[in-house]
C-alpha cells in the first residue's frame, strides 16, 4: 500500500490496463536470445502475430477473428478454465464443466478483444526461462514500450507459463509484473462460488452475461448473493 487503493499498481498500469498487451506483445516478441525450446516457442510466434496485428488492409472484424484464432490456438483454454474452477471441478457434472469451459472461452475472448485496440507497438524481449517441472516452463520476458508511456519505470516483467501437450507447447498462464492472471481468476471464481452455494451453473451464466456486457462496453452484472 502506498497512497490510495490503486497505488500499488502504478507499475502495473501499462500492462494491467491491457492484459491483451501481454498476449499481443507476445505476438511481437523479439526472436533474439531464445535458446531453450520453450523460449523458441515464445519467439517463433513473432511473425504470425505481428502479421495479424499490422495487417490493416483487411476489415477490422476479420483482423479480430484472425487474432481470436491465433489466441485460442496459442493457449490451452480448457486446461486454464478447469484450473480457474478450482475444487468445484471435482463436484460439477461433465455437462456443467463443458458449459463452464465454453462460457470461460467466450468470456476470455471478449476481454481480450475489448483490449485489442490498445496495442501500440509494445513488444517483448525474451530474457530467460525457469523449469517448474519437466515439460512445464516459465519463459521470462520484458515488456518494452517504445512510446515512452512507462513514465520512467523499468520495463515490466511478463512471464509465460508454457507446457508441452502432445509434443506441442501451449500457454497455460501469463504473469504481468508478478501477477498470475489464472490465479487471479481462480480466486475470483472461488469467491463467487462460495457466495453462491458452489453453483457452477450460476458461475457459467454470470460469465456469459459478463461477456455480453464486455462486448457491449458495459460493466459487471449484478452478482448473486
Amino acid at each position, binding site marked *: 500500500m502506498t497512497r490510495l487503493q490503486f497505488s500499488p499498481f502504478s507499475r502495473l498500469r501499462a500492462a494491467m490496463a491491457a492484459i491483451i498487451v501481454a498476449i499481443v506483445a507476445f505476438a511481437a516478441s523479439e526472436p533474439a536470445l531464445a535458446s531453450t525450446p520453450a523460449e523458441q516457442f515464445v519467439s517463433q510466434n513473432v511473425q504470425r502475430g505481428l502479421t495479424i496485428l499490422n495487417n490493416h488492409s483487411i476489415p477490422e472484424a476479420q483482423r479480430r477473428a484472425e487474432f481470436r484464432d491465433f489466441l485460442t490456438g496459442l493457449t490451452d483454454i480448457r486446461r486454464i478454465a478447469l484450473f480457474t474452477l478450482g475444487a468445484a471441478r471435482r463436484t460439477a457434472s461433465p455437462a456443467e464443466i463443458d458449459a463452464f469451459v465454453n462460457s470461460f472461452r467466450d468470456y476470455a475472448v471478449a476481454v481480450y478483444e475489448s483490449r485489442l485496440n490498445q496495442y501500440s507497438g509494445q513488444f517483448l524481449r525474451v530474457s530467460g526461462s525457469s523449469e517448474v517441472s519437466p515439460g512445464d516452463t516459465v519463459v521470462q520476458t520484458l515488456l518494452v514500450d517504445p512510446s515512452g508511456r512507462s513514465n*520512467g519505470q523499468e520495463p515490466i516483467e511478463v512471464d509465460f507459463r508454457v507446457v508441452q501437450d502432445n509434443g506441442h507447447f501451449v500457454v497455460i498462464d501469463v504473469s504481468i509484473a508478478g501477477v498470475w492472471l489464472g*490465479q487471479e481468476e481462480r480466486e475470483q471464481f472461488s*469467491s*463467487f462460488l462460495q457466495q453462491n452455494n458452489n453453483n457452477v451453473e450460476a458461475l457459467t451464466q454470470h460469465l456469459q452475461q459478463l461477456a455480453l456486457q*464486455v462486448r457491449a462496453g458495459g460493466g459487471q452484472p449484478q452478482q448473486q448473493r
Partner: protein
Amino acid sequence: MRTSWAALTIALGLVLAGCASTSTTNSQLQTDPDDPLEGWNRQVFDMNQRFDEAIMKPTAEAYIAVVPEPARKGVHNFLTNLNSPVVFANDLLQGEVGLAGETVGRFGLNTTIGLGGLVDVATPAGIPGHSSDFGQTLGVWGVGEDPYLVLPLLGPSNPRDLAGYVADQAMSPLNYVGIRDYTYWSIGAGAVNIVDERAQNMDTLNQLEQTSLDPYASMRSLYRQYRRSHIRHGKSSVKDLPSM
C-alpha cells in the same frame, strides 16, 4: 503541521468508515482463509468504490480533460522526484546499494538538468525509476503479510504495509516542510499527488470494474501477488506455482 495530509486522510477515513456500517454486505462472509476480516473489508471496499465514483474519478477525469498530457507528465515526474528520499532510504534498508545509487543518480539528474524534477532525463540516460517502500522493506526482512485489510480511502493493505505506510510518511521530506507557511503547500501537494495517481490508473481501474466477476476478490489477488513480487524485486519465483 508535520503530517497534515496523513492526518486528513485518517480523519476522513474514520468518518467514512462509520458510513460503511450501513452497507448490506454480509459481515460474517469469509471466502479466503487469509482474509478473516472479509466481511468488514468488503464493506470498506464498497465504501471506497462509492467515494471513488463520487469524488475521485470525476476529479481525475476533469484533471485529464483540462490539463494537457505533457503537463500531467511533468506533474507526475515532479511528484515522483519528490519521493526519491523515501525510495533511497528503503533501498538502503533493503541492502540494495546498487538501486540506492540509481535513486541518487536519478534524483541528481532530474533535479538539475530535469528542471527541478519536471522532466525525467534519467530514464533516457539509462537509469529507469523503481519504487521502494517500507512495507516492502519489512517484507524483505521477513515480516509476513496476513491478514488482508482494506482501509478507508487507502485501499488494499495488511498490518505490515500499513506500518510501512506510516513509516514512509514519517520519512517523507514533504511532511517536514509544512511549518505553518508551508501548510497549504503540503496539503496541495498531497491532493495533487492523489489526483495524479488516480488519473494514472484510470484505464486500469475502469477495466477492472468492467471485466471482473468479483472486483473485491480480484483486487485482493492482484494486491497480494503484486506485493509478493515487489518484495522479490520482480524476480520470478517458480517454486510456489500451483499445479495446473
